[in-house]
């Protein structure tokens, strides 16, 4: 451990904005991108299900 206090850690020897700006942006992307990807996957599944139901319904009707 090289820091004497939490405040010193946050201050990053005067480079706080730059260092935390970099790590923050990375963290933000690494949190938001998976959430978006997961949501898209769920939306895809839901949409495909709706389509499949519509397809089976229309094929039943055409069989009658």
């Amino acid at each position: 451990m090289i820091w004497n206090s939490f405040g010193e850690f946050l201050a990053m020897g005067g480079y706080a904005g730059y260092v935390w700006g970099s790590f923050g942006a990375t963290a933000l992307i690494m949190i938001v991108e998976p959430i978006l990807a997961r949501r898209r996957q769920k939306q895809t599944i839901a949409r495909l299900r709706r389509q499949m139901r519509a397809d089976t319904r229309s094929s039943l009707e055409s069989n009658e």
Partner: protein
Amino acid sequence: MNERLINIFRFASPATFYPLAGRMIPWFVALTVLFGAAGLWLGLFVAPTDFQQGEGYRIIFVHVPASWMSMFIYLVMAFWAAVGFTLNTRLSGMMTQALAPTGALMAFLSLWTGALWGKPMWGAWWVWDARLTSELILLFLYIGFIALTSAIDDPRRADKAGGILLLVGVVNIPIIYFSVKWWNTLHQGSSVSLTRSPSMAAIMLWGMLLMALCFWMYSIALALVRVRGIILERERHTDWAKAILSGETAR
């Protein structure tokens, strides 16, 4: 054709790969967290202050892995494109499209962190440094690939066109990098380099490697999540995809 090659790419069948990918994702997420925690600990708490760049050098712990991944992902995409052309596997095209957004984000992160490092060290947000410029061009190449594949409606045609673009791009990247570097030396670029920190201590190197592993695992996990969506979308008329859609809950 070589038997063993076909064996390796047996999992290239979407029907077998879809559940396999689903099982692998949690492992890669766990590895991402593990390597990330270890890398951050070394990088932020253990690694000593750099005598020249102060604490500002710690940006390399995210900058370098992001740059590496942005280049590596492009190579992997080109590899999949080559596989797609030689073995005609359906999965390869899907892999290129699943990887592209993560690659583009990595290139963006590399530029963003590069700018944040440049401001205190060079006194400017942007300097036409050979590495930063090449990274910017790499971001353009990613954007071009994404724009081309999303503009073509037929997925198979999109895969093939994207594949050609990737192979053309991968041939050009060394030429572009070399030319930018040459241009940069002619115009006397900056002397302090972000990545060539003087006397990189072993502990810094370890931190960087762990962070690189974290980014690597993260990219794999995300590519798998994305490729599952693409597989399901494209294979929705097959029986196995219908079984998954009608039986399984939205996982």
